[in-house]
């Protein structure tokens, strides 16, 4: 059928396999083992894609639908190494959620994930709210890998 290039071969090609060896087909690598992530996005399509990208890299992850749910999760004692934060969400958007989480003392890597917005000011505001990184949607495995390299440096 299609050339089902599995994650391992692909990552070998871009030279990332050293960091994340043995990935693919459910195996977890030393580097990604025990990394936890939170996907914050109101769109079901993105939730599924982002979760799968993380899963394929062996990263345990949870999904919530908006900033408030993300904040509540942290209030009840949960913590994650990595948070993928969408910008536009109902109830509480990514900018406000990031601010609140930082104010709560959350030190996780927070990566803003958003569509190419016409509003540069909004993007600056998002970064200023406390992001460690920003990636344009749609998220792909290579983009997540570049975010992960920051997590690895931190851990």
């Amino acid at each position, binding site marked *: *059928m*299609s050339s*089902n*290039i*599995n*994650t391992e071969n*692909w990552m070998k090609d871009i030279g990332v396999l050293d960091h994340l060896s043995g990935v*693919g*087909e*459910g195996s977890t690598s030393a580097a990604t083992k025990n990394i936890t992530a939170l996907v914050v996005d109101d*769109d*079901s*399509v*993105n939730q*599924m*894609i982002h979760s*799968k*990208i993380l899963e*394929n890299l062996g990263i345990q992850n949870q999904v919530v639908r908006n900033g408030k749910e993300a904040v509540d999760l942290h209030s009840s004692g949960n913590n994650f190494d990595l948070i993928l934060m969408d910008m*536009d969400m109902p109830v509480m958007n990514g900018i406000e959620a990031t601010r609140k989480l930082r104010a709560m003392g959350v030190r996780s890597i927070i990566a803003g994930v958003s*569509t190419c917005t016409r509003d540069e000011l909004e993007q600056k505001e998002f970064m200023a709210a406390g992001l460690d990184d920003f990636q344009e*949607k*749609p998220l*792909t*495995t290579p983009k997540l890998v570049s975010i992960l390299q920051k997590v690895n440096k931190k851990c």
Partner: protein
Amino acid sequence: MDVMSQLQRQWLEHSAFLRKEGYLDDQFEQLQKLQDESSPDFVIEVVSIFFDDSEKLLSNMARALEQKVVDFKQVDAHVHQFKGSSASIGAMRVKNVCIEFRNYCEAQNLEECLRCTRKLQFEYSVLKNQLEYLFRLEQQIRAAGG
């Protein structure tokens, strides 16, 4: 040529066609790469969610534009969402209509917004048919032992 090879060739040709005509872009390939033995229906599942969401959004857009006093910000919010999800699955043509549509929302141009709704509906329907055909081929290939 045996049945399997024929089906595979059809699948490849149709995939190439969809890419060439701009129905799908690289992002769709990214989705295909995510699919594996543990989730052999990943692409179909994501696209099904996309279809469900799209139909809701199109209906919401149409309704918002029918109001006596049109709330263009509301229409724009729906289009923005549609743009996001279509970009996520690699639906390039649909995404591009959304981009155009948003400009007319900003300009509060009702006539053009209505035209864009029709265009969007059309592009979406075509894409849906094309993808459903692709998935049918995949099912046939699997049934034939692929």
